[in-house]
């Protein structure tokens, strides 16, 4: 082995994408997934703090939180949930395409995931604009008219909207970061950097995207649905 030049043996010994510190591709794949999950666990606790404080303040100021919740548009919220679940499907199909070595399908599904993500952010922006118009943005434009809040304690409604904007904006920030990741993945796929042996970046990006979807799966009922709409 020592007599052979490093450059000629390198490609033969190592599959594309293989890093030297790992025993084999199996171990590298396992390590990558595990590392991503450790990061996602920190993200679970990061959002978990917000969910905990939301639960406490909701229980303390329930009438205001319910009144605030009823001011949100359920149709737009449900549509956005469906859009995001759709983007999770296309992301899963992108991973499938990468695993089966279908480069064109991989690029197509990555782009479709980004399109659905853009639709989600567009609807979110439209909701923010409506809230701005109605004067329901704490700190920046807080001037709700009488009919909007139905005699609910205004301070509690304002607190609800603080949570609404902070939680949804933090979620949207994650979506925008996901956008950047998907752009990089699309370029890498275009260059043909992935194969059925090496697609770890696609799978790990998928884990991130699905995580952001899960956060919304909880935000939707907590913010839009449990405000006593009957």
């Amino acid at each position, binding site marked *: 082995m020592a007599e052979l030049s490093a450059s000629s043996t390198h490609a033969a010994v190592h599959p594309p994408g293989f890093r030297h510190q790992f025993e084999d591709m199996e171990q*590298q794949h396992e390590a990558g*997934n595990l590392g991503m999950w450790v990061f996602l666990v920190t993200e679970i*606790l990061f959002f*978990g703090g917000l969910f905990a404080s939301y*639960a406490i303040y909701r229980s303390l100021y329930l009438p205001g939180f319910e009144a605030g919740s009823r001011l949100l548009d359920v149709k737009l919220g*449900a549509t956005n949930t469906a859009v995001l679940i759709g983007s999770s499907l296309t992301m899963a199909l992108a991973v499938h395409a990468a695993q089966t070595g279908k480069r064109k399908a991989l690029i197509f599904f990555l782009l479709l995931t980004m399109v659905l993500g853009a639709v989600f952010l567009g609807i979110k922006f439209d909701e923010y604009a409506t809230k701005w118009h109605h004067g329901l943005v704490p700190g920046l434009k807080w001037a709700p008219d009488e009919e909007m809040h139905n005699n609910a304690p205004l301070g509690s409604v304002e607190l609800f909207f603080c949570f609404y904007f902070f939680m949804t904006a933090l979620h949207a920030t994650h979506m925008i970061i996901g956008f950047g990741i998907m752009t990089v993945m699309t370029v890498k796929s275009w260059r043909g950097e992935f194969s059925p042996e090496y*697609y770890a970046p696609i799978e790990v990006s998928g884990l991130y995207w699905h995580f952001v979807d899960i956060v919304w*799966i*909880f935000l939707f*009922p907590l913010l839009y649905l449990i405000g006593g709409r009957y």
Partner: protein
Amino acid sequence: MSGHVVSVRLYVTIFLLLLVLTGLTTGVAFIDLGDYNTVVALAIAVVKMLLVVLFFMHVRYSSGLTKIVVLAGFFWLAIMLTFTMSDYFTRGWTPTPSGWGPSISAPPNP
């Protein structure tokens, strides 16, 4: 060689299930179940989360080590929520003797 390939059919089935559950949770929100509205909404959200984690995120097909890390994450979240709630939701249980100042349980609605 690395990673389980989930069939497209299963992905689409999970997607349709998630859509049905989204419709269900939205519909139930308009029916008066009292306190159970919150319980049902969160239960459906947990089922949706499990579908995404197990199938879309491949945890069902992952190694034991990954599964433990995922479970540990949710376990730590449960610790955080339980200990925080056990403080806030029990503050009114014990009476505050007079002379100790006002109770620190829920302040009045602003």
